[in-house]
């Protein structure tokens, strides 16, 4: 290369040479371009034609069309687009599409995506967009639907886009209107429970609308043939429906029928159907339109109404309706029967014609409640019939409302409750009576004191009888044999009757006091027995008026009349038979209660006396123990003299003897009470008995320095008696006389006899007996108080025992006294019985002659008793062994083989009975004499001892002499 300048020249030459080639190439290109241009022009012409065609087409179509270039600048608007956008083609051409076609989302107002941009960018058709609105040039909006598609050249390159859109406002309005109309129609159908169907003759298909399908129980849009549809009706209804349809089609008229449909579920429904044929111009049947309505509910209501009407007419109750003004509107047969008015007579009349004057105000009260919408339930009142009679009635009144819910009247049901009322009253009365009887029975049963018991009975019986007043007179017979003691009053104050004195045993009252039966009079003043007695000849002045009269005797279980219940009422015919029965029942209860009260009082008294007796017994038993203890001490004293020892022994013997007598008396009175005391009667001289009795009582008589006079018959009196017991009687009387007479008193025993009786009287100048105690002196545990105050002591059973023994003899004993301090006399009267054959020998005294030496076994858990007896027997010369219980006794028995065995019964481990039995069982080669020694001295005790194997039975304290005598007698 050369210099820069040359370099530059060469560059310039090369560049320009190139420029030539470029120019050639350009000319060639231009020629090609020209040819292409010609072709293009031709194509352009064609295109123009096509464009014109398109433009005309686009101008004539209803949609708006906008085209753009590749840059989305507007190239074309058709007239519709011009009108919708507000831009003319000339104005819009070249503008960005968004300037001309501005769209927003209808719902949000936000700019919407331009479909052209998407079509250009993605080269695809963009479908219609929803809810798009075009914002026109003037700012108004139009709801549109749009779509855009790319425009491609032949080579497939996108050259622009076309957008089509249209105003959907009218369409939407039309759709809305259609939807609204359809909705109204559906609403109307639904409101009226209506459905529709359509039958096409050409296809014989019935198409059900939603409502019609539902009524037939089918799925929506069901289709079936006419025959299949008819088969869903009940057979008898299907025939009728088919005939109606055929007639309608033939006559080109509508049909209107009702039929029953059986749904697939088996359920039945009533349907009202209307149908209209669809006909061609020539009159051919094209089909039919049908409307159906479910009228099942209506049919059911009609059925119910029919039933209700029958019920109303058939009801025995009065059922009526009235207006709010109280005017009777309807009147059933029940009302006719109850009130006596016919429907024609009362309809339109005020309901007050049925209401008694004194209750007219009730109607307004009822109407007020009705106007408030309230219901009156079971309102019990009185109404009046046509004939004027009043009767009890129960009303139920309910408001009647019209379809608007406004109260326009009332329905009233009236039921005659007269019988019910009476039954209720009777029931209440029965209940009252039962309650009264129950409370009376409880009260009577709970009372043990006679005054309150009698008052309770009187009050109860007065209530039960319905009397105005009542009285219970306790029957006490006075000296004249007639008197009544006013014990209790009910219904009137005591002062009202006190002045009249006690009712007398008149013809009216006598049957009651005699227990002859109940007297019940409807009007006593008309009774023939009334007014026969002076001075009143009837009721005294001031007495409560008595017309109705009822009197019931009160009789004890023994039949004795205790008293009488009397009731009166100023009105006639008050006391019914039932009242009488009720009072009789109360009277019976009262009698039992009063008997019980008496028994209770007697028992209470007996119990009290028993307690006193036991206390006295304890005291009496303790009395001898003191000197016995003291004598024993003296006897053991080392420094006691022989005289003292002998005195001590005497004291002990005496006190033991007194205790034994006391116990004997107790046993005897027990035998007397139980009826087991046996008399050993024998022919006895009276003098002998008197002598024995005097001898027994003599120590006390002498001790108190009484003067005793014995007066016996001159001739000996021989009679059959139990000398021991009679002696006991007389000695008791003499002892009492001595006991209850101050020292240096006088006692007289006077005996007499005749063929029938032997009478022995014992009189004293002692403390005497009060008159009210004369009967009680012979009772068990009875002691006159004055006697109790004395220091004489005693159990108070002597006279009871005396009386018992006398009674066993068949005799009597009587106590007499002029009163306290005036002495007493007891008179015993015995019947003279035939003499007995041979006297019973008296028990002999002990013989202390020396006997054969015996081997003796004494068994007693009381060591003192055993030892003392052993000492005594040893003193008699016997060999005595002592055991202190049954087992030891058996052991000793086996060892010593005694001749005599004295066994205490009450021993521990083995009692005397068991020991005796074993002894008897074991002993084979010898048989000792078994003697029971026990405090149990009843005959039964003796029998049991003998049964156990004993040979003898001695009651404690054992008399040593008796034992000694038995030992001397030997084992025989």
């Amino acid at each position, binding site marked *: *290369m050369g210099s820069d300048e040359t*370099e530059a020249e060469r*560059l310039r030459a090369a*560049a320009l040479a190139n420029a030539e080639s470029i120019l050639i190439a350009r000319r060639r290109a231009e020629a090609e371009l020209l040819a292409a241009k010609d072709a293009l022009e031709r194509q352009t012409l064609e295109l123009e034609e096509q464009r014109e065609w398109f433009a005309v087409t686009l101008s004539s179509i209803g949609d708006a069309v906008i085209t753009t270039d*590749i840059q989305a600048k507007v190239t074309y608007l058709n007239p519709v687009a011009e009108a919708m956008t507000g831009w003319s083609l000339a104005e819009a051409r070249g503008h960005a599409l968004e300037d001309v076609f501005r769209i927003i989302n209808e719902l949000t107002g936000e700019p919407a995506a331009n479909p052209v941009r998407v079509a250009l960018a993605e080269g695809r058709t963009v479908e219609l967009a929803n809810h798009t609105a075009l914002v026109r040039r003037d700012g108004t909006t139009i709801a549109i639907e749009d779509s855009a598609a790319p425009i491609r050249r032949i080579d497939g390159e996108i050259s622009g886009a076309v957008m089509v859109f249209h105003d959907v406002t009218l369409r939407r309005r039309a759709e809305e209107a259609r939807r609204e109309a359809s909705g109204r129609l559906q609403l109307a159908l639904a409101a009226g429970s209506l459905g529709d169907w359509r039958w096409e003759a050409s296809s014989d298909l019935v198409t059900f609308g939603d409502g019609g399908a539902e009524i037939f129980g089918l799925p929506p849009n069901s289709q079936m043939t006419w025959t299949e549809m008819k088969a869903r009706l009940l057979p008898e209804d299907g025939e009728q429906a088919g005939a109606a349809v055929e007639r309608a089609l033939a006559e080109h008229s509508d049909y209107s029928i009702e039929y029953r449909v059986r749904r697939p579920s088996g359920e039945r429904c009533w349907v009202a159907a209307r149908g209209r044929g669809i006909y061609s111009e020539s009159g051919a049947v094209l089909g039919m339109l049908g409307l159906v309505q479910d009228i099942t509910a209506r049919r059911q209501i009609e059925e119910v109404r029919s039933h209700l009407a029958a019920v109303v007419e058939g009801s025995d109750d009065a059922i009526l309706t009235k207006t709010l003004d109280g005017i009777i509107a309807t009147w059933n047969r029940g009302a006719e029967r109850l009130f006596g008015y016919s429907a024609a007579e009362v309809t339109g009349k005020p309901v007050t014609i049925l209401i008694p004057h004194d209750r007219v105000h009730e109607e307004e009260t009822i109407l007020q409640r009705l106007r408030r919408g309230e219901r009156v339930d079971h309102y019990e009142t009185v109404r009046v019939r046509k004939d004027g009679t009043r009767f009890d009635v129960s009303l139920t009144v309910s408001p009647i409302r019209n379809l608007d819910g406004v109260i326009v009247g009332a329905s009233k049901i009236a039921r005659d409750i007269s019988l019910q009322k009476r039954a209720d009253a009777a029931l209440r009365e029965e209940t009252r009576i039962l309650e009264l009887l129950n409370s009376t029975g409880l009260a009577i049963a709970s009372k043990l004191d006679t005054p309150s018991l009698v008052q309770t009975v009187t009050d109860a019986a007065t209530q039960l009888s319905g009397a105005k007043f009542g009285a219970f007179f306790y029957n006490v017979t006075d000296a004249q044999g007639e008197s009544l003691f006013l014990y209790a009053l009910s219904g009137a104050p005591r002062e009202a009757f006190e002045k009249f004195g006690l009712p007398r045993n008149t013809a009216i009252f006598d049957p009651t006091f005699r227990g002859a039966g109940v007297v019940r009079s409807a009007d006593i003043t008309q009774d023939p027995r009334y007014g026969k007695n002076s001075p009143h000849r009837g009721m005294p002045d001031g007495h409560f008026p008595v017309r109705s009269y009822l009197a019931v005797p009160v009789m004890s279980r023994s039949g004795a009349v205790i008293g009488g219940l009397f009731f009166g009422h100023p009105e006639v015919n008050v006391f019914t038979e039932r009242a009488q029965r009720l009072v009789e029942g109360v009277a019976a209860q009262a009698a039992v209660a009063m008997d019980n009260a008496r028994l209770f009082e007697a028992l209470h008294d007996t119990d009290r006396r028993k307690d006193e007796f036991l206390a006295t017994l304890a005291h009496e038993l303790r009395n001898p123990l003191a000197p016995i203890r003291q004598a024993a001490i003296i006897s053991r004293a080392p420094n006691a003299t022989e005289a003292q020892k002998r005195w001590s022994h005497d004291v002990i013997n005496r006190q033991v003897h007194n205790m034994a007598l006391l116990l004997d008396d107790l046993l005897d009175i027990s035998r007397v009470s139980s009826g087991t005391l046996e008399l050993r009667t024998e022919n006895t001289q009276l003098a002998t008995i008197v002598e024995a009795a005097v001898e027994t009582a003599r120590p006390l008589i002498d001790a108190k320095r009484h003067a005793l006079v014995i007066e016996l018959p001159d001739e000996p009196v021989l009679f059959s008696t139990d000398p021991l017991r009679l002696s006991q009687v007389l000695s008791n009387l003499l002892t009492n006389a001595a006991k209850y007479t101050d020292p240096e008193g006088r006692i007289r025993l006077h005996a007499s006899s005749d063929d029938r009786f032997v009478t022995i009287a014992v009189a004293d100048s002692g403390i005497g007996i009060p008159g009210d105690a004369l009967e009680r002196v012979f009772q068990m545990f009875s002691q006159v108080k004055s006697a109790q105050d004395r220091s004489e002591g005693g159990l108070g059973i002597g006279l009871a025992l005396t009386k018992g023994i006398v009674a066993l003899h068949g005799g009597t004993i009587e106590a007499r006294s002029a009163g306290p301090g005036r002495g007493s006399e007891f008179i015993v009267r015995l019947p003279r019985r035939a003499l007995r054959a041979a006297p019973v020998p008296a028990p002999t005294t002990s013989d202390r002659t020396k006997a054969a030496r015996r081997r003796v076994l004494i068994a007693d858990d009381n060591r003192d008793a055993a030892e003392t007896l052993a000492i005594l027997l040893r003193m008699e010369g016997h060999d005595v062994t002592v055991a202190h219980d049954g087992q030891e006794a058996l052991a000793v028995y086996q060892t010593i083989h005694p001749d005599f065995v004295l066994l205490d019964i009450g021993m521990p481990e083995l009692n005397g009975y068991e020991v005796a039995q074993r002894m008897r069982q074991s002993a084979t080669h010898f048989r000792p004499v078994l003697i029971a020694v026990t405090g149990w001295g009843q005959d039964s005790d003796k029998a049991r001892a003998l049964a156990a194997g004993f040979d003898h039975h001695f009651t404690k304290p054992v008399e040593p002499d008796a034992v000694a005598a038995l030992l001397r007698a030997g084992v025989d």
Partner: protein
Amino acid sequence: MDIPTEPIGSLPRTPKLIEAVKRGDGFDPSLEPLYQDAVRDTIRQFEATGSPLITDGEQRKFHNFWTYSVQGLPNTAANGFAIPFAAGHVRRMPRLTAGPFRYARYADRYLEEALSLTRLPIKQAVISPSALSLLYPPEGIAGYDRNAFIEDLVSEHVTEVRSCLRKGAAKVQVDFTEARLAVKIDPSGELLSRFVDLNNLALARLTAGERLRIGVHTCPGGDRDSTHSADVDYAALLPSLFHLHVTDFYVSLAGEADRVRVLEIIRRHLKRNQRVFVGVIAPIDPRIETAEEVRDRVLEAARIIPIDQLGTTDDCGFAPFCDDESTTRETAFAKIRARVEGTALASRLLGG
């Protein structure tokens, strides 16, 4: 309204790459790791500038923006025409020695790599056919006449452009820096017109849609902080420039003495469907402009150019030739950031 802003394309290579290229052949396979690092780093830093559209910095273009597609062709010689620069140095083009003319490589290969490294839009710069037309020697080539060469040239260029577009380039920029040089060579303007015709011949073979994504860059030719035709009046260039059948033009302006005059010329000749990206950054000026300066330059341009036809760019690439070390990468990215920010500032002000 956002004013668009785009780079021109080239960025200084990485120092290591420059050194390695200096030592040997730019096509040495051993340089591959360095090339990868350079491209990766360039894209990373580009993203960091906030640029809405980036390039790969033409890191792999060897030797430069003009000859990359023919570098190493066997039917070329190194002793082609020389392009003198005002700084005194010369860049010599290769010379075609035999036909047929074919590219040694298309720029779409660079695009593929860049697309794999970023999600941002990529601009791919390609050399104009008018620039490569200077390969044909003035004496001609036996058996391969100039017409055939022009035909092959246009065909190759269209192939490259279309390939880049189809592979996803957001923009294909045709570097037409020889436009101003053509006026310098032929002040009558005839050469320039022929260059415009040649480029239009190529553009005519692309579709309208393709042309929408094609822009043309012109500048006085920056290399080593120097130019080859800054002395040519824009008034002689711009009227013909806007005859090119593209919509986007990238025109250097920041380095012009009278920017307003140039803007007015642009305004007069800019067609309604065209947009001009005016240079608001001077790559050959070592001073880093501030965003505010850029903003002001944008506002200045917006007073004359309709805003919907206005964009911003750099006057030129920062390193059209691979061995250009006159500007550091840091400076280049800082200037780019200033352009982006300044343009945004102006956009906010202008947009309300």
